């Protein structure tokens, strides 16, 4: 059990969240990679791994940051990548080519740089995801995605890292619950 579930519930009182949250303007969200200094570790949302593996790769500012700063990996992102390794059909001709880069990413992660959410983070993320499922009317499939994103965000908070993510809408909502979290958002790089 979490160390203090009562405190977590008090922090995010479900009764205080009754209306659908509107998405904020981009100007109110963090998109400036230059604001992150070299000494701050970054944690990568699953979108970052996938965008890096697809052409044309990450936007230049994000790639510069990822190449320069200490990179932490959230166990949730590892799990999302690993699910596909298991899910790809072994008999499909494209499977080997799709599985290889995912395995390379997972196997290149230094074990000491992989961070798992604490029991408190799991509980807090679940409360927040539950509230958002209600206020935003999320379909059942979307609830798990929000829960995963919430866990990644809280893991980054615990690790005192900046979470880099392209999941702009989910992070916009989640930051209402944890405005102290450090998040850097980005858009997909433009293919030329």
């Amino acid at each position, binding site marked *: 059990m979490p160390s203090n579930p009562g405190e977590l519930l008090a922090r995010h009182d479900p009764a205080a969240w009754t209306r659908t949250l509107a998405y904020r303007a981009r100007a109110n969200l963090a998109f400036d990679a230059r604001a992150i200094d070299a000494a701050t570790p*970054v944690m990568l949302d*699953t979108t970052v*791994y*996938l965008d*890096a*593996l*697809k*052409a*044309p*790769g*990450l936007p230049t500012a994000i*790639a510069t940051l*990822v*190449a*320069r*700063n*200490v*990179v932490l*990996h959230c166990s949730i992102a590892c799990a*999302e*990548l690993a*699910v*596909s390794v*298991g*899910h*790809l059909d072994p008999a499909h001709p*494209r499977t080997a080519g*799709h599985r*290889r*880069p*995912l*395995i*390379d*990413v*997972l*196997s*290149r*992660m*230094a074990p000491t*740089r992989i961070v798992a959410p604490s029991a408190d983070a799991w509980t807090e993320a679940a409360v927040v995801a539950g509230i958002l499922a209600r206020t935003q009317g999320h379909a059942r499939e979307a609830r*798990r*995605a929000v829960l*995963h994103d919430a866990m990644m965000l809280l893991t980054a908070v615990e690790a005192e890292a900046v979470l880099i993510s392209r999941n702009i809408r989910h992070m916009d909502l989640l930051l209402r619950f944890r405005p102290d979290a450090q998040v850097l958002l980005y858009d997909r790089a433009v293919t030329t």
Partner: protein
Amino acid sequence: MVAPVARKSASTLRKRVRRGRKQADGDTGGEPLTDLRLRFAFAELERSGTLAGARSLKLSTRVDPGLVDAARRRTGLRSDSDLINAALAIIAAGDDFGAWLVRQAGRLPQDFELAL
């Protein structure tokens, strides 16, 4: 203390990592992910020109036997030299994950989606 010993290249050690795993007894074979990490480490050290290409330095040291046993289980390596070289390679290669990741563009197709 420095003494010439048999010359073994990094590629030889990589082969021995694989062979050592196969030779390990019962269920104590090396872990595939550890094997991959070693291969990546040696590939990076070769690419960066870090390796001299020969095991020419002899080291004499004392180590915790529990540490050695645990490392053998993970790697499947039985030779002390192979084991020490593997451990040093992991340390020397460091963590270049970010720099490596940003060079991987194009390895997945645009239409690839996660299973979740």
